[in-house]
């Protein structure tokens, strides 16, 4: 029997050993480039944005230095933003859960039921990921449109006599598309966390009498809970913050909060309002994260 395939041999988890003569300063020095990059490119811009949310808008992107909470007040009270915020939350929530439910069986299949073709199928999924974000949304307009694939197909079969207009330019359309966009990443995250689950554990559960579904829910799910939480959290953020899909397929009813935020910075110019809306959105995300990490309580060892 060979001693291991390929370059990196899976090893029992080891804590990083301190090599006999490690000096304490090295880590900090080597992390300096990273620190600089992140500060300049991330921390500082975010901080400035946060400051901006307290400034007063003079229209067309201009601000005065007078600090106030008015942007936040407008953001929270104006009915204009309520619908789109709710849309974002609802579509974000349903979308990420739907994504999880759809991709979990796929991930399970890839990890535990495929012997040889694992790499191939994963690469295929990655190809769908990189076929172009806008392009994919665009393709859905062709599928969902009045003369699109679904309507033409259903009419041909005779199930409907009129094309369904609800398919496109609606909340439904946004949900379908964002779910579609999230499935590849979710699958990859789940497969990654399932890698750490020993096949033998599942077989053992079967041996003890657990049926297929029972094994999955009571054994597998706790063991890959980190991946599940990761998938839900990441999916929610990406979906709720998507400002392109609603514009392309959302119509009037399917807009999400990201759209007015981006508008403030592009056309309308009330940047403090845009910033305030963004940070409120981030606040919601933090709450959602916190809620999801509570799920980790159900984590198996």
């Amino acid at each position, binding site marked *: *029997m*060979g*001693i*291991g*395939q*390929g*370059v990196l*041999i899976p090893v029992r988890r080891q804590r990083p050993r301190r090599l*006999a*003569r490690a000096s304490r300063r090295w880590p900090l020095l080597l992390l300096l480039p990273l620190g600089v990059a992140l500060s300049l490119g991330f921390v500082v811009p975010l901080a400035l944005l946060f400051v901006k949310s307290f400034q007063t808008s003079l229209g067309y992107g201009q601000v005065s230095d007078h600090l106030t909470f008015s942007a936040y007040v407008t953001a929270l009270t104006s009915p204009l933003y309520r619908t789109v915020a709710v849309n974002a939350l609802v579509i974000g929530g349903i979308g990420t859960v739907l994504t999880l439910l759809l991709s979990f069986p796929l991930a399970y299949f890839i990890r535990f039921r495929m012997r040889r073709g694992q790499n191939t199928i994963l690469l295929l999924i990655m190809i769908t990921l990189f076929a172009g974000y806008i392009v994919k949304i665009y393709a859905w307009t062709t599928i969902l449109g009045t003369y699109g694939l679904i309507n033409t197909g259903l009419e041909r079969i005779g199930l409907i006599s009129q094309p369904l207009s609800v398919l496109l330019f609606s909340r439904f359309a946004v949900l379908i598309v964002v779910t579609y966009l999230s499935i590849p990443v979710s699958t990859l995250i789940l497969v990654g966390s399932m890698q750490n689950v020993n096949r033998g554990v599942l077989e053992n559960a079967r041996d003890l009498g657990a049926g297929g579904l029972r094994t999955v829910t009571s054994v597998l799910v706790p063991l890959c809970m980190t991946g599940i939480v990761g998938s839900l959290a990441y999916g929610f953020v990406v979906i709720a913050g998507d400002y392109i899909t609603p514009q392309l397929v959302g119509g009037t009813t399917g807009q999400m909060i990201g759209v007015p935020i981006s508008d403030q910075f592009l056309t309308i110019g009330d940047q403090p309002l845009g910033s305030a809306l963004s940070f409120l959105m981030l606040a919601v995300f933090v709450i959602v994260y916190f809620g999801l990490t509570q799920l980790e309580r159900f984590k198996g060892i």
Partner: protein
Amino acid sequence: MTETGAGVTTRAGNGPGSGSEPRAAVALDSVAKRFATQIALHPLDLAITEGEFVTLLGPSGCGKTTLLRIIAGLETPDDGTVTIFGTDVTDRPANKRPVNLVFQRVTLFPHLTVAENVGFGPRLRRMPRQQARDKVQAALDLVRLPDFGDRQVNELSGGQAQRVALARAIANDPKVLLLDEPLSALDLEIRRQLQAELKDIHRRLGLTFVYVTHDQEEAMSMSDRVVVMREGHIEQVGSPVEIYRRPRSPFVARFLGMSNVFVATVAAVGDGWVELDGTGLPLRAPAPAPPPAAGQGVTAVIRPDSFEVRRATDGPATADSVPGDVSDVRFIGSLVHYRVTAGDRHWQVSARAGSGEVLPEGTSVRLSWRADEVILLPGAPGPAAGG
């Protein structure tokens, strides 16, 4: 307080016959080590003579690997000094010590061929190419893989990989070769084969070997001296014959497979013999010096091979024997292990099977023993089950 493992530093093992007194290859003085939550090694001393094959033997967690790694330089002791051939290397990192380690798991460099692996050390020292190549070939010849130079690491079997690891260490011309349970992951047959080859290589090179294992059979069969360790202490040091015939503690006795360790009371002492009470058997043992006092509690050992069993009906009762019953039988092939109930206890008996009868469970037998092989352990008796 330090525990002395070896008696005299220059106790000679079966080293090569050098005219002058053999030197101490490795000397450890008051070496101690602790990790965050526990003490790995209590302060201990050990001296290893040049050319010896010494084995550190003990159960998992006893500190033998830590000790080996301290000699290698991959761990630093919290206390004490490490001296190699007279030079204090305690503060020297692993790459500057004239020792080499063969690891337990395969640590061949996967991105290099076998020859490149073996030649790693020579190449680091910028040896001229031809000289390095000769050295690599010589090492591969020594481990009986002369044609494996161009192979890739992932093409090797477990046994082959460890041989290459050995060749790699040897090609570095170490003054001391350290081996950390290199055979534990291999199949029995390959293990036996490699044990013999290792011994052979040791004889040929005359190199000092320090070996670590938890397998007592392996330790006994290959070593000049065995260092029995337990929980960071050295329990006993001696040749295989010595520690087997004269174990100094219940732990050593049990670890070496002598499972009849028991507590008894001295009934009488005289004539060079000690009579024991408390086991239900008329036991006597050769009196050690100084002899114990009557009434004292002692710990004694009878090796399974010191017993003999035959059917109760086969012949008369002799001295140093009792009737008993076979309560368990395990036939191993060349040996039969019986558990015989006699007196107040069960006794583990180990007999050569030969072509004779294998007594079934329940047989009434005559259990006899050689009284001069009953061993009295020094020191106070340990608790019966622990020790």
